[in-house]
């Protein structure tokens, strides 16, 4: 049925050849252009607001069109310029187009939320511009098929997110010193990561002589078949674990996250936890699993080890927190560990499980952050021990937080359960019993910290008696994400199928490579 709908849309789109032909690059070009426009129009408040909303919706539509195109026609390659693999090729397969769609969806929610949440002065200055550039960076990362181009867009995303951390909230509960400190750590560790990324890219280029991912992948696999895989290629593959592990906040590269995610303004925290850390997951799948596949006996054990430590460390950190947003941030660390556990098991099933887990976590965690923003506005503090009884004054938020908590804790019938179960199941199938058991124990800890937080925020003696009047701009995104958290669970078949396809394409990248190399240079 989905295929039918997709092909209908695809046929409709064929009548607009410009969009159809360029739908691969438009999700990058539109926000890039919008980012520039936003600076020009920064004094026209209303106009800017609607323009940004329009841009976000357009990106969502484009992302939707892109994924239908991919569903109908399979992966597509788009050469920027006419140089084939020698130039830069954009590649949209199911993995990248799902990421683009996810980004577009979550970012639209965050944009709507921002109108009410972010200080209007800040909105008028640079917020929209930075936000759009961050989206451009993200989409650029997801769509590029070139390893150096990936680096460039990594920097765009990285810098834009740093700028956004400093956006002012209407009612800030964060000390400016903390923002500086968080951003400083983010910057320093991120820069080291970038340097290491460059080293890995240079090493790979210096050995293989190519920057195109598909081309490198093909050549490395040829080398491997001939039994002369050079050690520096393995080293470069492992170095990418540092790069993406740093973005995804894997132990021992996670140190920046608990300081950055809470200090960022809430919609940005939602983006950071919902999307930006998933860039690490995407990168591991696309770069390490695709290009350095022959080195899998090296990186899979390493990944499994650090993902298990990450799961545990994140959960311990989350239990320790009294700061609501910091608790959520630690929870993100722990949850991303689950995703990486799925990747590190390395079977098609577990990779599919990791993919599904990542998507469900993105929805639930960004919703939780947005909800937390409302709670913090109402309680005027981030300290959960100083909250209490808020269920009476903000029933909507309590329900939303409950749904999010259930999803993260993996309690059915919310989406998170299905992904967690998938992960446990595929893990057991692959024989990773001990890893599954550690994951299970931590899942118990997750129930503890999620519900403990819920209880201390919403139950107990009420400190506030006035009902919280939140605007529709804040409630709408939360409500939509709630609906998705529930429906994605109950109607999760398409996501699971997508996961299967993504995983099979990761395991066997034949289709990806041939699609890219079909683009013939002039």
């Amino acid at each position, binding site marked *: 049925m989905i295929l039918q709908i997709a092909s209908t849309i695809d046929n409709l789109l064929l009548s607009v050849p410009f969009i159809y032909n360029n739908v691969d690059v438009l999700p990058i070009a539109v926000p*890039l252009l919008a*980012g520039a426009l936003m600076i020009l129009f920064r004094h026209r408040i209303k106009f800017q607001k609607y323009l940004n909303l329009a841009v976000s919706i357009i990106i969502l539509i484009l992302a939707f069109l892109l994924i239908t195109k991919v569903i109908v026609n399979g992966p597509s390659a788009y050469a920027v*310029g006419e*140089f084939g693999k020698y*130039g*830069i090729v954009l590649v949209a397969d199911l993995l990248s187009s799902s990421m683009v769609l996810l980004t577009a969806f979550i970012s639209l929610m965050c944009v709507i939320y921002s109108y009410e949440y972010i200080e209007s002065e800040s909105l008028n200055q640079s917020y929209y511009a930075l936000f759009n*550039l961050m989206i451009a960076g993200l989409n650029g990362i997801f769509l590029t098929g070139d390893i150096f181009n990936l680096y460039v867009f990594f920097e*765009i995303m990285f*810098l*834009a997110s740093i700028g956004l951390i400093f956006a*002012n909230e209407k009612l*800030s509960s964060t*000390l*400016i*010193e*903390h923002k500086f*400190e*968080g951003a*400083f*750590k983010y910057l*320093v*560790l991120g820069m*080291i990561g970038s340097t290491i990324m460059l*080293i890995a890219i240079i*090493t790979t280029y*210096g*050995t*293989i*002589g*190519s920057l195109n991912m598909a081309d490198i992948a093909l*050549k490395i696999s*040829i080398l491997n078949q001939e039994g*002369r895989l*050079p*050690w*520096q290629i393995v080293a470069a593959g*492992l170095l990418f674990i540092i790069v993406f592990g740093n973005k995804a906040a894997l132990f021992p*590269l996670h*140190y920046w996250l*608990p300081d950055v995610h809470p200090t960022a303004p809430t919609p940005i925290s939602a983006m950071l936890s919902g999307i930006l850390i998933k860039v690490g997951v995407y990168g591991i799948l696309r770069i390490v699993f695709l290009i350095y596949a022959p080195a899998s006996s090296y990186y899979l054990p390493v990944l499994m080890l650090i993902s298990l430590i990450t799961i545990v460390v994140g959960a*311990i*950190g989350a*239990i*320790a927190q009294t700061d609501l947003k910091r608790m959520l941030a630690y929870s993100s660390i722990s949850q991303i560990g689950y995703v990486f556990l799925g990747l590190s098991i390395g079977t098609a099933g577990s990779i599919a499980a990791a993919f599904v887990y990542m998507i469900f976590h993105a929805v639930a965690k960004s919703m939780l952050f947005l909800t937390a923003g409302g709670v913090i506005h109402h309680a005027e503090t981030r300290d959960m021990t100083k909250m209490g009884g808020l269920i009476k004054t903000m029933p909507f938020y309590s329900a939303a937080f409950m749904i999010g908590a259930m999803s993260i*804790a993996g309690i059915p*019938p919310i989406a998170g359960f299905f992904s967690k*179960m998938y992960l*446990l199941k595929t893990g057991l199938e692959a024989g990773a019993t001990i890893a599954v*058991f550690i994951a299970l124990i931590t899942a*118990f800890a997750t*129930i*503890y910290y999620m*519900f*403990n937080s819920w*209880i201390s925020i919403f*139950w107990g003696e*009420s400190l506030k008696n006035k009902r919280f009047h939140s605007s529709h701009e804040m409630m709408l995104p939360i409500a939509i994400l709630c609906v998705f958290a529930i429906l994605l669970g109950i109607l999760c*078949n398409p996501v*699971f199928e997508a996961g*299967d396809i993504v995983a099979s394409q990761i395991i066997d990248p034949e289709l990806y490579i041939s699609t890219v190399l079909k683009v013939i240079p002039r």
Partner: protein
Amino acid sequence: MLLALLYDRSFDSVDPFIILAFIIFLPFAAAFVLPIIGSKMKEKIGWFATLISFICFLAVLYLIPNVSREENLSGIIPWINELGINFSLRADGLSILLAAIVSFIGIMIMFYSNGYMSPKDDLNRYYQYLLVFMGSMLGIAFSDNLILLFLFWELTSISSFLLIGYYRDTEKSIYGARKALLITAGGGLFMLLGFIAIGLVTGTYEISQIVSNPEIILNLKSSPDFAGILILILIGAFAKSAQGIFYIWLPNAMEAPTPVSAFLHSATMVKAGIFLIARFHPVFSGTDLWFYLVSGTGMITMIFAGYIAIRQTDLKAILAYSTISQLAYLVTMYGFTTEILPTIGVSAATFHLLNHSTFKACLFLIVGIVAHELGTRDIREMGGLAKKMPITFIIAIIAAASMAGIPPFNGYLSKELFYESSIIMGQQIGGIWSAIIPMTALAGGVLTFMYSLRLIHKVFLGKPANEEMYSKAHEPGAIMLIPPIILAALIVLIGLFPDLFIEYLVQPAINSIAPGSEKLHVQLWHGFTRPFIMTVFTIAIGLFFYMKYDEIAESQNRFCSNYKWFSLNNLYDKAVNNARSESAKISGSIQRGPPTGYIIWMLVFTIFLILIPLSGFYFSGGNLFDPSIMRLPASEYFLLAIIVITAIGAAIAPKYIVAIMSLSAMGYLVALLYAYLKAPDLAMTQVCVETLSTILFLAVIMKLRKKEAVNPDPRSDQITKLLIGFISGFSFLLVIMATGIVEPFVPFSEYFIENAIELTGGRNIVNVIVVDFRGYDTIGEITVLSLAALCVYNIIRAKGMKKEKKKESKEEEESTNITDNITDIVPEEI
């Protein structure tokens, strides 16, 4: 009569699957629309909920004839293929029994709540939770898919959590709710793993397929994971049914409104674990492990909980411990199996399952009435209520006598069966067990007898302990009396005419657990059999020890106050209360604050990652890099040596300014290297960048950190950092030195050189790459530059929390420094 009428028709028109789905989803749908209806019906909304449960009950009744004819009532809708989850429902004897109990008690509870709950309460929420719970419970009963069952299972945990915490302002409710959730939902997680493992071994999650296929069962029993699977599933079942070490949540769950306790925590939800044990009986029973784990846990829990019940003074606490003990009866009986006699305990247990629901729910409702009238639940404040509340008194006697196992009530019948099965089981095992098992059963019976007697004695007989309360007490309204009366009538009815209930409810359930088992025969009088003699002993010993009731309770109290640490509750409290501070210690030791440590970790990890392939390759005897690249002119070596010296200087320089100068010297030397390698444009760029950054660097350092600018670091730290920096730098060097295009591959640069003029018309290869071949990258780079400017702009305009708040929170930070707070910024790395 009704049943006889129904018996004659079969499903011609309605698909049984639709009826099953209807039974499950009706309560959910009702819960969903309840707020809308509630706004019209106001405080009468309880009647709507009562109606819903009545409809469910009718629908369950409607299915009974078909089930007792063992028709196949099932249906399946495929759901999530990857997980093996199907929406498959199935009605057999066992599920109908549970569903009938759930929906019938549901009617009683919702009816009763109309009198019990005050109109001032948040009734919509109350009935919503109740309906969701009921729907989930019915879902557990009818699910034929393990994962679907788990889904409803966790929903009951959540609705139980919300109901226990119904009075959400009070500390005790919150404590109880959290405890119940952690234990039942947490136990559920382990059970899920067990289910998944079953699915892996058998290849299906469909319960009916697993349970009825002897091949699959054999497979499971011979699987090496058998013990693990059994333990995991039992953890879930025991957690739900408050057995073994998991009992601790149930007494605290009594903070819920009394109808909720009657419904969830005695009659239905806690039966879910029992239900699961019964469901898996055909799969796991017959093994030694099953007997030891199930019956063993059951017998220990039975004695232990019964014994503790004696000490309680809170009416509901007595009932809570009694529930634990009674559930343990069921567990024990389901554990009674051998290869030869697979079903000795099953029929007794299944019958008791029904009976316990009737008398325990009835007792809870009575307690609700008493507590409602007196305003206390403390048994020491009561007494003599028989005169004031005669009807309540009579009902209480019936229910308590049934629980104590006194004829002619239903509890007597099933207790005799229990005794009988324990004797048989003991004989089967032989040896010392033939005495221990019946004696244990007897002890359990004695304890039950004692606290049942206590209930009647202390509450209704004797002199009133509190005159003031006593004078206010009177018989409750009809709404609160009718449900217990109906339940009491049922107790008597089952006691006097057991055959009717056995025929339609119990026997089909037994058959579905153990197909082809003997028909259950129950009689009030069956001669001086051994079970009857045991009953006589029970009453005699019970009466004897009842004389010393207070002494026993006192000795328990003494023990508890002397050995406070010796309790699972204490352990739980310690674990939960200290979880935050303990994990804060761990987390704080990992997340120390200053970024230096983080960088060190990152670099150490990097070195480790490079070392893996490096050492592997080195020890297998390969060349790490082509030695020919070491052949450089001496002048280059000289230049490189100076660069290294400046780098070391930057690292160990005692003052920031010197370090910065050293660093910039390194930059200029690199520019020189570029020039030497015939790349003048690169060299030019490098010189510009270096100049600019040095000036900025110096300006910022001088402005910001005067103190640190003089003396940045202690010596020892510097050496560690230098070492780690050196090793990581050297590893990177090795990696890069190893490169060199592998033979068959032509690098991209060849293509650029060949095609530059033809494709782009440019001669300068660098320019052509930047603006043509990789122009897209250049767009990105331009964006990065403008972004940097935007960021700086944003940072300058940034503001945080308002001033006065800032002060306040600063102070707090100093006082409560338990979390791994963001510590003060230490910008040594600037």
